């Protein structure tokens, strides 16, 4: 999913692994790793370019209490295709929520390089000010209120009625068996 506001692709950034990916053995090992670590992305690395699917899974991993795994999936996806705007924003907000100023700074800088005209810049700078009020670069910013919600959990972001109905049906079935 490419973005119209993306900069020229020859920028050096956090996720530049193109040299390694050209090596067939390294590529094979990476693919085996991804297939084993994230079996639902096993068949095709093109799945890692499917931003909707990546965000969907990352949100569910947050639901499972596995934020590290969600972050890793987003990193892998961006290594495969750096122009996935929503994946960047997801990571940036996670770094903000984890109060990780160093990581936030790295991610925000890389995002700015790839999407120099990104409309989210203002919010990102406001978040940077909130994380590090003494950073003179952001001294005129105000804290973002409310948060942009780029990294919401699946359970917050989706219509839950079908999932709830299934869950209740499963509980009823379990209760019947437990009673027998």
């Amino acid at each position, binding site marked *: 999913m490419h973005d119209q506001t993306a900069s020229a692709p020859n920028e050096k950034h956090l996720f530049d692994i193109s040299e390694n990916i050209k090596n067939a053995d390294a590529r094979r090992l990476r693919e085996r790793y991804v297939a084993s*670590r994230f079996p639902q992305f096993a068949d095709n690395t093109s799945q890692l370019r499917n931003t909707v699917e990546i965000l969907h899974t990352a949100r569910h991993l947050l639901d499972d209490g596995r934020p590290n795994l969600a972050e890793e999936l987003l990193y892998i996806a961006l290594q495969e295709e750096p122009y996935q705007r929503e994946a960047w924003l997801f990571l940036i907000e996670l770094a903000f929520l984890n109060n990780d100023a160093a990581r936030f700074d790295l991610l925000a800088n890389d995002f700015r390089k790839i999407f120099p005209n990104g409309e989210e810049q203002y919010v990102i700078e406001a978040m940077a000010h909130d994380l590090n009020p003494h950073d003179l670069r952001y001294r005129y910013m105000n804290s973002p209120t409310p948060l942009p919600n780029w990294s919401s959990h699946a359970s917050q972001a989706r219509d839950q009625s*079908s999932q709830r109905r*299934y869950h209740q049906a499963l509980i009823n079935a379990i209760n019947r068996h*437990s009673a027998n």
Partner: protein
Amino acid sequence: MDLNFQLESATPTDRLTRSHRNLADAHIDLHQAIDRSNQPRSTKMITRALAEFEHFSHSQRLQLLQGGLSQTEGDTALMEWIAARYDHLFRIAYDVASIKMPTTDEHDPFAWAIALLIGGHSSKWRKMSMQRPDLGAREKLHTLYRSAVAKKCDTQILNVFVDRNEVETSAEAAYIRALLIERFAGGALTARRLEILDSWLIASQSTFWLAREPVAGEPVLGVDPTDPARSLIPLMPGETSRRYLSLRPLSRQLQRIIDGFHRGTIFPGWGMGLLFRVEEHIAVIDFLEREIHLVGNLAAPKSKRINAARGEVVTMFAGFNDIYAHALIMQTTSPPIGTAASIEQIKLNGYGAPSLEALVSANSDTGNFVITERIRSLVTLVDFSEAGIGLEMTGEDAAMLDIDHLVAIQIHPNRPRVIGIVVRKANLHHHAKTLVGIRILARVPLRATLEHVSEALVRPTIKGILICDSPEHGFGDSVILNDVAFKLNPTLSVSMADGLFHFRLGRVRQQGPGWKMAAIEVVVAR
């Protein structure tokens, strides 16, 4: 210990040859030949003996580690022999490090580093060969460390060889690695995974150090080098220790290992781990992530013990297909139609462990179930909590189970079977029994026949085991399938008394040989 007796007792085997006997004899000779007035010279002798032994045993160790479950008596004897060799070399190296030289300057700092390094090897191979830990070994490790500190050579960086690979270490770093191996060799890792983890620890040794004060906010283990009863232990908030090991460097190293896989490289780039499947490495990553998280969140409440009779004999089924076909007959998503008598239709010609053939069949990813004579085992319950079950079984039974295997257990007659995953295997001290730890996946798993959602007139069905988690939103619910069914990535439907549901498979929450537990994402509810 009489080493010749040890060698003889390892029979019957064709794996131990005259060369093995000669090497054991050479170690006895070496122990006698140690120059007790010259530590540097003796250190060189033990270093050479270690290199020779590693060279001699390299292909055998690799073959044993690649063998997995299919070990013969000969394999077991060979593993025990290797562990005995490392034990003996450790005793010799300990004696060498204990040599007192006239002045401090005449001591050889390598003596401590080599002894502690071999001590770690010894712990690891004892575990791999399913032997009890040597109770005196930890005291020796502590003594060596204290002695290195006293001689002010504990932090001196030295280059040593492990399987012909040069690595940086120090007496302190080798001590920490030995203690970490002792901690991690508690039964939660298979031999292959322990070998992978050890190669990571050995290659990362220079990043480990002990502090006199804990670092606030970091996951920390404590150690008291004067207390032989204690190794590295997690500390409760407010608890103190003589020395502290922060796990932050290990955590950072783990991140580097993960980053390496992203770039298509395996850390550390040498060692037997290079030849093992990527899945084994990922299991070690999962294990370390869990360990570090647990140490950092020690104040979290433990799960409640459940009042089940200790020592009670319970029934265990192993492998996805056997569990689906036999353990969960009564536990279906449809209202129960069977009777208690239907359970007795299970073909049982005897109790004991499932045969290897049965296990291969049960864990097979072909999805085909082959009737075998032994389907279930009777094992002894030793512990039961909301989160896990401890089972005691004979070594023979336990040999057929490995970490990540799927099992179902019936605690009480006429009550639902609990389904879980094997997370720990350890030999018990008091007799030849093995303790197997099970993490519970569901207390009432439901067997379901799932149908592919398609326009086709004939829709294939697949077997699934439905798992219910507590959150009311339902995103915690899962289904266990065999690998083949999972790879098809189908949209499936399941019919229950309260409706028909279409769902797709989400992220994988747990997996083991031949099975995966995937999240359920409901797309249609009618």
